[in-house]
């Protein structure tokens, strides 16, 4: 594949310049070029949601987005939420409610939840469940994820 394209992408507040093949997936750019392996690839066809990141504030599938489409964009990945020594509030809610088991879907769940919490009231359990319906978790049965997001919503509403 000839002909690389120059891109400038801001990821978690840090600006990156790269020359990439037009076919390079955003997920691979994030994982391989930037070494941010928190973004997981679970299906490469946009169903499982493990690769969900925020691009200009909206959740997108990094496996269905090309790196060149992120040119000029602001991207947020799970690494932006906090590190293991200083977890952010949503990450803490996930931990307290046992909202993860194997952890593979978790970065996508967290980014989808971040998007939902920023934009929607999430007044009912149904609203949260519908919001999560594009992210598959095979371990938890979702109940604890819903509990964690409900707790994060309550926390948000206090502010």
């Amino acid at each position, binding site marked *: *594949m000839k002909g690389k394209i120059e891109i400038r992408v801001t990821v978690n507040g840090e600006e990156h310049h790269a020359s990439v093949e037009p076919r390079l997936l955003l997920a691979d750019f994030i994982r391989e070029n930037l070494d941010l392996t928190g973004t997981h690839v679970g299906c490469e066809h946009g169903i499982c949601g493990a690769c969900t990141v925020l691009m200009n504030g909206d959740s997108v599938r990094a496996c269905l987005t090309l790196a060149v489409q992120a040119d000029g964009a602001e991207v947020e990945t799970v690494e932006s939420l906090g590190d*293991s020594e200083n977890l952010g509030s949503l990450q803490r809610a996930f931990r307290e409610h046992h909202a993860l088991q*194997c952890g593979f879907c978790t970065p996508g769940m*967290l980014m989808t939840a971040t998007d939902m919490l920023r934009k929607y009231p999430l007044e009912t359990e149904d609203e949260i469940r519908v919001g999560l319906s594009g992210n598959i978790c095979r371990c938890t049965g979702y109940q604890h994820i819903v509990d964690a997001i409900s707790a994060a919503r309550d926390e948000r509403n206090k502010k």
Partner: protein
Amino acid sequence: MSLPNDVELTRPQYVGATVTRREDPRLLSGEGNYVADIKRHGMLHIAFRRSDQAHALIHKIDIGEVLSLPGVIGVYTGKDIAEIAKPYKATSRMKNYQATYIPPLAIDKVRYVGEAVVAVVAESRYIAEDALGLIEVEYRPLPVLVDPEKALEPEAPKLHEQLGSNVLAEREFARGEVAEVFVNAPVTVGGRFHFTRTTPVTLETRAAVAEYDKGAKSLTLHSTTQIPGIVRDKLSEIFDLPGPRVRVIAPDVGGGFGGKTSLYSEEIVASAISRALGKPIKWVSDRMEDLMTTGHAFDEVVYADIAVTKDGEIVGLKADVIGDVGAYSIYPWTATIEPVQVVSFMPGPYRIENYAARVRAVATNKTLTGAYRGVGRPISVFVMDRLLDMAARKIGMDPAEIRRRNLVNDDEFPYKAASGLVWDKSAFQSCLREARDKIGYEELRREQNLARAEGRWVGVGIASYAELTGVGSRIAVAPGMPINTGTETCNVAIDSTGAVTASFGIASQGQGMETTLAQVVAQELGVKLEDVEIILGDTAAVSHSTGTYASRGAVFGGGAGTLAAQAVREKIIRVAGHLLEAAEEDIEVGDGNVWVKGTDSKMTIRDLARALYSNMGSVPKEMRDEIDNLEATKVYDPFFGTTTAATHMCLVEVDPETYNAKIKKYIVVEDCGKVINPMIANGQAHGGVAQGIGVALMEEVIHDDTGQVLTASLVDYVVPSAVEVPSMDVMHVEAELPGTIGGFRGLGEGGTIGAPACIANAISDALSPLGVEIMELPATPERLFRLIEAAKSL
């Protein structure tokens, strides 16, 4: 500082406490280490060209200009790999079993769609995939077998020409006078049940990174496996390398559910190519490959009948099971693992004296079936508990009542089930009773009657089951297999820095074992929870281990961990007795300290370790010679294993417009013995039920007549999302604890075992005014529509 003389205060009861998981911070922040995250200097990537034919001779493989493509390093066919790695097969001492050789890459012939034929090695995965498209494989098609009942027929073409037939295994069971009771029984019901094929769908697809070190002549394989020990042992044989020079590590693994309990061709091919090239080799499956090649589940037809008295007492049970096991007998479990378990567990937790069963495992041109959460029992419970409901309906008895009358009573344990399994005491009756009370059974029936009066399709489902967990050396997990699945090892060591490490061969795929095993070891040793390091899933850690499967982690890990911690604790007490100048029986250990009861004479275990290891003179040579170090390796064999029991109940409504079955209430009451961490135990039940909902309502691997997989994407193979899984109640009945160390029973698979039967019963109950019985799962809207239309036209 106050004196630590209160044992209850200073030795916190970690076992039984809800403790947040220690694996969480790294997994929540993207700092986990999954196989796909591994990078090595000079690492190369493999992609596989897979068969698009279900059954064909490989006439010609033309690699064309592939090698001139920039970045392509090499191309390997089955014959190339055979020169580096021997083919392997799953042997068994079981009578009437035929093993099949499994070539890591197909040689001369392909037997299912998705079978790996050619491996391309390149500098990047993108280039490797580009290269696949340039390879031409010419096939000569052979007759395709997709229907196991046809593959059984004597004139059917054979998948493996050297074998006598396509029946890879056959077994019969009989107890009592089955033919006679069926002739004389007042009521019999039965039919043909079908549990379609599903696939595990771990969110992390399978992956491997193989690193052969030419200088050290050693192979390290990072793999998404549940069975690092089994993989290590087999790779050592396949590559003729001594055990210490093959190390298999399962790092953070993204779900297993049984799908990662088998040895896979890709692990061998990656290792073989790494050995040939002396370079690190990485392979990460894509989802299509994963859906087509990870061991499939279930796929059985069961002809079964039950005979009952007018009072609902079961007097006889018959079952004929035909298991479609796919193209090869999977390693190490063999083709028997799933179908034989169906007949072994068919009588369930019920008192059944007369039972006759036959099972045949039949090879077809499909992906291999292997272990999947529940193994055999989801279908055996489906058949048994459906039969009970059908019988109850026929004699006009409540489904909860017919179960109460047939469940083994508390005073009847140990109970030898008709298939020969022995149930140790478990809360069969109280799980049923508690589930009834907790869900408000009578009220649910009233609700149902009101809904029914409005013409709505609302039903109540019940399923009761028993499973054998933590199975020790008395019984092999798969019949006759030459691998010991009955023991596990733990090493507990306090090193010269005073730090505690507990090392296990079992691996975690999300069960939280770093946390639960730390709870057990910290409590038994008398140290703080956070001071115990847990090592899992590394064959370098212990000399023998098989891994995590069959609901054995808590029983085996907890048991071996307890034994090893207790042995180290005894050593600590000996040394403390000397250092604190007190009798050993006066020494107390807790919270990382040792002290003399009722005194202020105290020291930390850290200081005690330093005294023993480094301050020569503080512990006499005789004592040091005697205890060696603060370390112990212990092996635990639970011998029989122990029985986990549960009752599931649910309320389901079928939508008359969409024919979608919606689960409105769900409860699980289980006896899993002593619960180590209630939060984690609940999570296991939730996840298990969610997968059971998938099996009951949504998930199905579909092959067409030519053996093509029509469900090779997550668009076509649909697993439950947050919308389909309801909030559920989970209750643990810690009745009489079993004889396992710590009183632990296994609980990982239970949810998936009970849910399909429970939901199928609820739908059948909902549709009982139409006379619809659910005999086949998943009960998709399309199936329900057809059943209802057919019933209406009668």
